[in-house]
C-alpha cells in the first residue's frame, strides 16, 4: 500500500486546521456526506437485489410529488422537529439523551390522560383541551427526563443506558393502559378522542379555503416552529444557554466559572424530555386521536440523526426534519421494510465520519520527482 502511494506523482497529507473554516463549509460538508451516503445506500440496495434509482425516485415522488403528499410529509416531520430539538438541546450540553422515544410515549400518555382519566369533561372548549393536553404531555415528558437527569447528577449514572432503559419501561407502561384500563371494547387502543381534543388541521378550514381539502397538516407544525425559535433563543441568546454550551464544550471551565453542572443536568434533561413529550402530545392530538401502541416508527431515534445532521442548530432542525419526514413517509411503501432504517444508519455514519474534515484538511502536494530520484 505504502509503495503504491510512493509511486504517485503527488503526496496526500493531513494537516490539522489551525483556523476556523468558513461559515458555509460545515453545511457543504454535511450536504456532501448525505450525497455520499445516498450513493453508498444505492450500492447496498443494488447488492440486495433492488433498483436503487427507482427506490429514490419513488421516495421523492411519494413525499414531495404534490401538495397532498407534501402535507403528509410535514405531518411526519412535526414529531421529528420536536424530538430533534429535544436531542439538540441535550446534546449541546453533551448529555446523551437517547430516551426521546420513551419521553415521546410518556408525553402521549400524559396528553391522553386529559381525555381518558378524564381531567376535563368531554364538552370542554377546544382551546382549553389543547392547552391542557400540551401542559400534561410536556409535564409527563419532563418527569421522564427528570429521572435520568437526577440519577446522572446525583449518582453519576450513565444517562445513555438509563434513558434507553426508560424507553422500554415507557412502552410497557403505555401498553398496560392500552390493554387493561383504557381499552376500547377489548381492542388494544383507547376510544377515539372527542373532536374538541383534536388539534385543528388545514382540512378543517376547507369551507373558507377550498384549497385545503384533504390536507392533514395540523397545528403541531406551529408548535414545532415556535419550539425551534424558543430553543434557539435559549441556546444562543440567554445566559442559561451560554451555561449549557459552556458545560458542553468544557465542563471544567464551567465549574471554575461557578456554573452548577448538576442543576443544569437536571434542568436540561427535563426540558429535553418536555420537548419530546410535546411531540407525543402533538402526534396523539393531531394525527392518531386515540392512545394506541403503534404511534411511533422510531421518531425518538431518528431525532438523534436529525439533531446531528442539523449540526445541533435548532433552526436547521426544521428543514432536516422535513427531509427525514419524507424518508419515513415514503419508506413505508418500499420493500424490504428495513430500507429507511438502513439509509438513516448510512447517513449518520457518513456524517460522523465527515466531521473529521472539520478538524483536518487534506493537502495534495506535487512531488518533485527529479529531486527525489537523486
Amino acid at each position: 500500500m505504502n509503495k503504491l502511494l510512493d509511486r504517485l506523482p503527488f503526496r496526500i497529507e493531513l494537516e490539522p486546521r489551525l483556523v476556523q473554516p468558513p461559515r458555509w463549509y460545515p453545511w457543504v460538508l454535511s450536504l456532501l456526506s448525505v450525497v455520499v451516503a445516498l450513493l453508498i445506500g444505492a450500492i447496498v440496495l443494488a447488492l440486495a437485489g433492488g433498483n436503487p434509482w427507482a427506490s429514490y425516485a419513488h421516495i421523492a415522488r411519494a413525499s414531495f410529488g404534490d401538495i397532498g403528499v407534501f402535507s403528509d410529509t410535514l405531518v411526519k416531520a412535526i414529531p421529528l422537529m420536536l424530538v430533534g430539538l429535544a436531542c439538540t438541546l441535550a446534546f449541546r450540553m453533551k448529555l446523551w439523551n437517547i430516551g426521546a422515544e420513551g419521553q415521546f410515549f410518556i408525553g402521549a400518555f400524559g396528553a391522553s390522560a386529559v381525555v381518558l382519566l378524564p381531567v376535563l369533561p368531554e364538552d370542554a372548549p377546544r382551546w382549553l383541551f389543547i392547552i391542557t393536553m400540551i401542559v400534561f404531555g410536556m409535564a409527563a415528558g419532563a418527569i421522564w427526563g427528570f429521572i435520568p437527569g437526577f440519577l446522572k447528577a446525583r449518582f453519576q449514572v450513565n444517562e445513555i443506558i438509563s434513558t434507553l432503559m426508560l424507553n422500554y419501561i415507557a412502552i410497557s407502561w403505555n401498553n398496560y393502559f392500552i390493554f387493561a384500563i383504557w381499552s376500547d371494547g377489548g381492542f388494544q387502543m383507547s376510544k377515539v378522542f372527542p373532536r374538541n381534543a383534536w388539534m385543528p388541521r388545514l382540512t378543517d378550514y376547507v369551507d373558507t379555503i377550498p384549497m385545503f381539502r384533504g390536507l392533514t397538516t395540523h397545528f403541531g407544525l406551529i408548535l414545532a416552529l415556535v419550539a425551534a425559535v424558543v430553543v434557539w433563543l435559549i441556546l444562543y441568546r440567554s445566559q442559561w444557554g451560554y451555561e449549557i454550551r459552556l458545560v458542553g464544550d468544557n465542563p471544567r471551565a464551567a465549574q471554575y466559572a461557578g456554573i452548577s453542572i448538576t442543576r443544569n443536568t437536571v434542568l436540561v434533561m427535563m426540558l429535553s424530555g418536555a420537548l419530546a413529550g410535546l411531540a407525543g402530545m402533538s402526534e396523539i392530538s393531531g394525527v392518531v386521536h386515540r392512545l394506541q401502541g403503534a404511534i411511533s416508527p422510531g421518531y425518538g431515534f431518528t431525532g438523534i440523526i436529525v439533531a446531528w445532521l442539523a449540526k445541533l442548530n435548532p433552526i436547521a432542525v426544521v428543514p432536516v426534519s422535513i427531509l427525514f419526514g419524507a424518508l419515513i413517509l415514503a419508506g413505508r411503501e418500499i420493500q424490504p421494510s428495513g430500507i429507511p432504517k438502513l439509509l438513516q444508519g448510512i447517513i449518520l455514519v457518513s456524517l460522523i465520519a465527515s466531521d473529521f474534515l472539520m478538524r483536518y484538511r487534506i493537502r495534495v502536494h506535487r512531488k518533485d520527482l527529479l529531486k527525489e530520484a537523486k
Partner: protein
Amino acid sequence: MDPIIILQAGVSTGTVLLFATLGEIFAERAGVLNLGVEGMMLIGAMSAYSIAVYTGNPWLGLLVAMIVAGLFSQIHAFISITLQADQVVSGLSLGFLATGVSLVLGEGLSKAGTIPLIPTYTVPLLSQIPIIGPIFFTDQKVLVYLGYLLVPLCYYFINHTRPGLHLRSVGEYPAAADSLGINVYRLRYLYVFVGGLFAGLAGGTISLAISPGWFSELTTSGQGWIAIGLVIFAQWNPIRAAFGSYIFGALRRLVLDIQGPTMIFGLANPFYYNPYWGFFLQMLPYAFTIIVLVIGSREAIRKRLGSPSALGVPYIRGERGL
C-alpha cells in the same frame, strides 16, 4: 415456578448477556466505548440464522456471525480511532447501520423452516452434584459451557498476561503505552474487533440456541444495551460480569414464569389473576439495569474505582493527552 428451573434457564439466557458483556469489557479496557453492541448482536443473530438455514450447519452460522459482527465493529473503530470522532455518536451510528442492514437482509428469514440448532449436553459427573448440578451442568447448550470457560480465561488474560497488560495500558494511559513502543492504534482496532466477535457470538447464541429464530428487532430486544450497563456493574471485571449476566438471565426468566402458576408460596398468585400486570413485570429487567447502575456507580465512587481512564478519549499521537 421451580426455582431450580428458573436458575437453570437463567444461566442459559444469561450466557447471551455474558458474551456481549465480555466483548464490551475488552473494547472498553482498550479505551473504546462501543455503543453499537445491540446492532452487532442483531447482525450476528441474523447472519447466524441465515447461514444455518442455507447450509444446515449451526456452527458455521456462529462462525460467520462472529466474523460479520467483527467486521462491522471495524466501522466504529475506523471512525472513532482513526477519524477521532466522538465515540458515543460513532457507536450509536454503528448500531443504526447494523440494525438497518440486518432488517433489510433478514427480510423473510422468519418464514424459513426448522433448522438444526446448537446441541445441548449434560456433563457426566458434575450434573450429579445437588443444586449446582441441575442448574449449571444439566441439559445446557454447549455454548453455556463455552461461557464457563471464557470467564476465567478472559480474567486471566486481562490481569495476568503481558498482552493483557498492554490492553489495560492502552486504555489507562495511551501516551505512556505509546512511549514504550506499544502500538496504541493497532491494539485498539484489535480489541474493538474482539468486542465485535463476542457480540456476534452473543447474537448467534440467541438465534441458534437460546430463543431460536429471527424476529427482526425483537430478537435482541435491548439485551445489547443491558450488556453495556452490566459492564459498568461488573467494573470491567469478567468474573463480576458472569454474576451479573446470570442474575439478569434468571430475572428475565422469572418474569416469564411467574405468571404461570395459580399459587405462589401458598397464596393466590396476583400475576395469574391479573394478566395485565405482566406489563409491569416486563419493565423489571430494564428497571433493574438502572438500579444496578446506581449501585455500581456508588460502589465505584466509594472504592475510587473507575472506568479505564482513557475510555472515550481518542488518542492523538503527539498531542498532550490526559
